[in-house]
């Protein structure tokens, strides 16, 4: 249901990021429209995590710009992005291990509280509605959770900020197939809440099935882009990322 009439909420233009002399991203341009799920797929080391870090402001970029909600920026500041409704669930989850599940979630609403909102109790109920497991474990230390629960907590914590755009870095990484299905079901359900999602994944099949539009990132460059159903049928994508066509669905 991607409506291409809408102004993009996030537009990355011509982005270059270097680690020392090595250029990790090479003139990358992507767009995300409000309420849309966009995925970036590609092999390990293609620069997917680098892309998200640069958009969030965790990593400086050398060229190009990140336009968020129509405002183009050459220097992105993490706190400012969080305040304006962007959240990132990093690949390493970065939970607060020695704090309870509930405290982890409440800290997700830290910026909203600072901005003067006092609705974290209702948001907490909503997050518990999406992940009932977290409600059962609310008093447990985050560090003692299983891998799947940790990922649920990381996503739940990001949702506590009531983001306009949610960026997920490899949410299925290292999880059992059943949990992966659960996570992707939640990503699909989030579409109804109107949040835009930028999803970085190695699990290309699941990512393309849940998303509206996709980019294929290879060695720091956008190799291919298009509506997700078209990419799913693209012979190059099928061969490189989806395996044998017969395995589809």
């Amino acid at each position, binding site marked *: 249901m991607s409506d291409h009439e809408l102004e993009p909420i996030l537009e990355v233009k011509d982005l270059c990021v270097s680690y020392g002399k090595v250029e990790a991203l090479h003139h990358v341009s992507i767009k995300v429209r409000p309420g849309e799920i966009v995925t970036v797929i590609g092999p390990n080391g293609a620069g997917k995590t680098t892309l998200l870090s640069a958009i969030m402001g965790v990593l400086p970029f050398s060229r190009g710009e990140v336009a968020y909600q129509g405002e183009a920026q050459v220097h992105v500041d993490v706190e400012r992005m*969080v305040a304006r409704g962007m959240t*990132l669930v990093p690949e*390493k989850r*970065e939970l607060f*291990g020695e704090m309870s599940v509930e405290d982890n979630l409440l*800290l997700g609403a830290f910026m909203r509280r600072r901005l003067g909102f006092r609705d974290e109790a209702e948001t907490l109920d909503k997050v518990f509605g999406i992940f009932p497991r977290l409600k059962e474990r609310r008093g447990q230390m985050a560090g003692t959770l299983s891998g799947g629960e940790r990922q649920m907590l990381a996503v739940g914590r990001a949702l506590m900020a009531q983001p306009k755009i949610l960026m997920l870095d490899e949410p299925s990484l290292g999880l059992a197939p059943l949990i992966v299905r659960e996570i992707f079901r939640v990503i699909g359900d989030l579409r109804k809440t109107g949040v835009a999602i930028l999803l970085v994944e190695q699990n290309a099949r699941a990512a393309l099935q849940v998303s509206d539009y996709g980019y294929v990132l290879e060695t720091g460059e956008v190799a291919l882009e298009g509506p997700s159903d078209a990419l799913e049928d693209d012979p190059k994508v099928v061969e490189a990322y989806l395996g044998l066509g017969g395995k589809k669905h």
Partner: protein
Amino acid sequence: MDLQIALLLGQDGIVNGAIYALLALALVLVFAVTRVIFIPQGEFVAYGALSLASLQAGLLPGTLWLLLVLGLVVTALDAPALMRQGRQGGRRLATLVGWQCAYPLALLGVVAGGTPQSWPLLLQVLLVLAIVVPLGPQIYRTAYQPIAEAPVLILLIVSVAVHLALVGLGLLFFGAEGSRTPAFSEASFEIGDLTVSGQSLWVVGASLFLIVALYVFFEKSLYGKALRATAINRNGARLMGISTTFAGKLSFLLAAAIGVLSGILIAPITTVYYDTGFLIGLKGFVGAIVGGLASYPVAAAGALLVGLLESFSSFWASAFKEVIVFTLIIPVLVWRSLTTHHVEEEE
């Protein structure tokens, strides 16, 4: 040694230990959040005690000038970036100028224009807190924020520099003479053979209250949780919008407040000189080391142990009092290095 002397020394040790415990907690807090070993902690003790003494003597404490000068420096550092930010920056610029320039000037007006020496003690204490505590975040902004990502060793070297600068300024502000302030309470109580002074009860009571208050702050309040989150996972905290700068300033604010209150509490018990704070802070540091710079309860218990060790060794071998206390650090480090799993600092 008979029982009465032992009780007396024990009382002394607990009173001093309570102060060391407060300072140890502040050191653990600052290190956990910012990785800074906050050697200047002791200077806040001295500044607190001496600022109170000069207010009571009807003088203008030099710390007020430091507050104003650092305020101007912070304004000069932060204003350019805010001026480039448009409307939202404008509001933050007004807040900045308000706190860093108008606030010190207002305090200056209150102290110079009023007669704080005739105020009740509680108001004088609040005024000293209002003057000295903001120096904490100001020092974080000027000395540590620009190098927040530097290795622990660099941060330690800067701490030594800040400590030396503040001791020198202390000499300039307050002179080489020591000061003592009147006791909060002249009362004394007889419990069996033991005479307990009202001031000792004040110190122990206020320390316990502060420790409980800190516990509640870290467990219950969102800002307290944000500080703990930063200590546990800096990257995770940043992604929640808890900036390293914010956490650093808040932890320095708390550490400064703890230091100043400790100074005000001990000022009636011991004569405080411009350089007294260092030794007191160092004993808090020994306590913090016992807790591995990580555990709050163990650090507080370690600091209490330091206080008791100090008072008993001053009886048995008073010339070696400091030697005995600081030697404690060696067995503790040996024991810790044998029992704890060593983790290399991540760079």
